[in-house]
C-alpha cells in the first residue's frame, strides 16, 4: 500500500520532535514542513524534507493527504480550516482550539469538507492507558464508584521564563489548560463522560495570573465520582510525568498517580496493580487483599498516534480522539477553570 503523504505545520517545541517521529512511522511519508521561523529550516534539511516559510504555499504546491498542526493554539482553527478547505485531513495538537466556539468552527469546516480530525491527546495511545481502559470498561473492577488523580510536581522557575512567559498568562497558560487537560482526557477515555465539575483554585504560591494549585471534584455520567489534586509547585513525583516514565526528559520514580475504585476491585495506576478479595466468603476490611499485576508492553505513544492518523486517512480506522471528543475535553477543562473563578459547581 502506498504511504500517506503528510505535511507538518509548525516546527516549534512540539513540531520538531514530531517531525523526527513522523520519519519513523511506517505508513507515513513526511513530505514537507512549514514554519514562519526560517531558523528551523535546518530541521527540514536534517530530515531531508522540503521546507516552506508559508504553509499556504506548501499545501498548494505539494500533493498532501493530511497535515499535522503543531501551532500556537490560536492558529489551530484558522489554519485548520484553510487546510480542510483544501481537502486535507487534520491532526491538531491539543487543545483542539483555545475556545469551544473556535473548536465548533473547525469541526464544522472539517465536516463540510469531508475530512477527519484527530486531536493530539497522545496519552490515549499509551499502552498503560489502553490497558486501564480495557480493565475499567471490561468490568474487571465491577461497577466503577470513583477515581482519584494526583498531579503534583515542581516545575522549575525557568519553565515560566523568557519566551515561555505566556505560560503564566490567563490566555492559554496555567497548569489547568496546559497539563490538567491531559488528565481530563485520560479520565474521559477510561471512565466515560464527565458531567459535573467543581474546583477550588489558588495562585498563592507563585502569585502568577494563572493558578498553581487546584482541588477538584468530578461526577461522571455513569454515577462514579472523583477527585483531582493538581499543583505545580511542590517537590513531588506523584504525577503522570513523575510515575509513568513516558517523558524521557523528566524524572520518574514509577510510583502511582491514579486510583480507580470499583465494587469488585481497585486499580493502582501506572503500576497496574489490581486489588481484590480472592475468596468470595472473605470479603471485607478485615480480610487479606490479593494483588494482581499486568504485563504492559512499552511502546512509543507518538508513533502509535501518527500511524493511527495515517490509517484514519486511509479509511481503515476512525479517529480515537475525534474533533467532538477533543472539544468535550476542552469544554470540561474550561468548566474547571470557570468553577475555580466563580466558586460554583458547573453542570455540563
Amino acid at each position, binding site marked *: 500500500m502506498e504511504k500517506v503523504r503528510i505535511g507538518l505545520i509548525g516546527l516549534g517545541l512540539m513540531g520538531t520532535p514530531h517531525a523526527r517521529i513522523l520519519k519513523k512511522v511506517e505508513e507515513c511519508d513526511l513530505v514537507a514542513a512549514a514554519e514562519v521561523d526560517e531558523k528551523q529550516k535546518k530541521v527540514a534539511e536534517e530530515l531531508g524534507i522540503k521546507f516552506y516559510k508559508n504553509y499556504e504555499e506548501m499545501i498548494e504546491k505539494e500533493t498532501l493527504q493530511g497535515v499535522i498542526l503543531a501551532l500556537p493554539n490560536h492558529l489551530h482553527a484558522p489554519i485548520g480550516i484553510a487546510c480542510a478547505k483544501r481537502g486535507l485531513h487534520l491532526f491538531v495538537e491539543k487543545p483542539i482550539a483555545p475556545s469551544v466556539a473556535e473548536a465548533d468552527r473547525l469541526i464544522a469546516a472539517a465536516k463540510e469538507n469531508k475530512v477527519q480530525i484527530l486531536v493530539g491527546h497522545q496519552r490515549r495511545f499509551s499502552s498503560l492507558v489502553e490497558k486501564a481502559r480495557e480493565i475499567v470498561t471490561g468490568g474487571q473492577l465491577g461497577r466503577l464508584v470513583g477515581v482519584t488523580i494526583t498531579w503534583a510536581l515542581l516545575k*522549575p522557575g525557568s519553565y515560566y521564563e523568557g519566551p515561555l512567559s505566556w505560560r503564566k498568562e490567563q490566555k492559554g497558560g496555567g497548569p489547568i489548560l496546559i497539563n490538567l487537560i491531559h488528565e481530563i482526557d485520560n479520565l474521559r477515555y477510561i471512565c466515560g463522560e464527565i458531567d459535573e465539575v467543581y474546583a477550588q483554585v*489558588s495562585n498563592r504560591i507563585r502569585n502568577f495570573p494563572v493558578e498553581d494549585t487546584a*482541588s*477538584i471534584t468530578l461526577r461522571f455520567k455513569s454515577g462514579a*465520582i*472523583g477527585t483531582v489534586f493538581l499543583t505545580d509547585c511542590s517537590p*513531588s513525583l506523584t504525577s503522570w510525568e513523575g510515575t509513568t516514565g513516558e517523558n524521557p526528559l523528566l524524572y520518574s520514580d514509577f510510583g502511582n498517580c491514579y486510583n480507580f475504585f470499583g465494587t469488585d476491585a481497585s486499580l493502582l495506576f501506572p503500576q497496574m496493580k489490581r486489588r481484590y478479595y480472592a475468596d468470595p466468603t472473605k470479603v471485607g*476490611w478485615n480480610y487479606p487483599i490479593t494483588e494482581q499485576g499486568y504485563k504492559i508492553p512499552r511502546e512509543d505513544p507518538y508513533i502509535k498516534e501518527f500511524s493511527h492518523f495515517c490509517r484514519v486517512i486511509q479509511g481503515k480506522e476512525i479517529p480515537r480522539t475525534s474533533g467532538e471528543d477533543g472539544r468535550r475535553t476542552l469544554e470540561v477543562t474550561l468548566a474547571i477553570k470557570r468553577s475555580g473563578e466563580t466558586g460554583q459547581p458547573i453542570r455540563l
Partner: protein
Amino acid sequence: MKKVRLGLIGMGMIGKLHAETMSKMKDIEFVAASDADAKHQKTATELGTKFYQSYKEMIGKDTLDGVVIAVPNELHLPVGATCAKKGLNILMEKPIAADLESADRLIQAAKENKVILMVGHHRRHNPMIEELRRIVRGGEIGKLVGVTVLWSLYKPKDYFKGPFAWRAQPGGGPIRINLIHEIDNIRYICGDITRLYAEVSHEARKFPVEDTVSISLRIAGGAVANIFLTDTAPGNVGYEANTGENLFFYQSPQNCYYYYGTEGVVTFPGMKKFFYRDPAKAGWQYALCEEGIKIDREDPYTRQIRNFCGVIQGTEKPKIDGVDARKTLEVALAIQKSGETGQAIVFG
C-alpha cells in the same frame, strides 16, 4: 498525686476497648463500668471492675472524677448532661453529639457545671499525627500547598446487619462514622476549614446513606485539600488499613495522606519526607531526596485516657474540647448538606 477515679458508660464496640485500656493503666482507678445490656457484666468482671446496668446508679453511688461515655450518638447529650450535673468530667466519644443543637446544649451543660468536656477523636493522640502537625505547622515543608486523603475500605455485609442496621440509615453512613475522623485530622494538623464542596453517591450499595464521597476543601491560610472516601471498593487504603493502630483491619503498606508543601512532601503513615536538596537542581527533571521520620509508636487510646486524667488534675489541656469537636461535626454535616444540595458551603 491521688489516682484519678474513672467510670465508663457504654461497653459496646468502642466502650469495650476503653474498658480494656483503662484496666491496664496502673496510674488510674477504673472504678466501675455500666451498660444497659447486662451481658457486659462478664467483661467488667474479667477486667476487675464493678458493673452497673444503670449508669445513673453508678454515678450516684460511686465517687468518680470523670466518666468515659461510649453510648450511641443520640444519647451523648442526655447521658452527658446528666453526668455534668453530677459534677463529673467527661470524655465523650466522637461525634460530640448527634447534631449541632445537641452539641451546643452539651457544651453549655459542661460550662454551667464547670466540668471538663473532652471528645474522643483519639487520632489526635497518635504520635504520628502529632508529628505530622508539628512538621506542617512548624514550616518544615515550607508553605502548605495542599493535602490528599484517601479512604477506601470495604465494609463487609454484616457491618450493616441486625443490631447494626442503623449504620445504613440516616444518622449512620460513612460521613458521620468515618469521614469525621479525616476532617478532624485535617483540622488538627492544618487548621480550620473555610469552604467545601462534596459529591456524594449511594449508587453502589443503594442505601439511604452514602457509600462514596469526593470532596474539595479550602483550609484557613489558603491550602486546598481533596478527600475521597468509599466503603464499597476493595482498596484497603485508609487510616485503619495502613497505620496498624487497630489490627482488626487487614494492613497494607500504603500511604493514605500526602501533605504537599513548597519545600517538601510528607507521606502518612509511611512517614517519609521528600524534597530537593540542591536548589539549583529543583524541578521535575531531577531525582527527589527521601528521608525517614522517626517516631516512637504509642497506643492513642491509652494516651487519650492519660490526657483526660491530666486535664482532670489540672496539669494538661484537652487535645480536643467540646467547642473544637463541634466544629469538626459542623464540617462533616456540611459535607452531607453540600452533597444533598449540590452547593458549595462557605464557613463564616
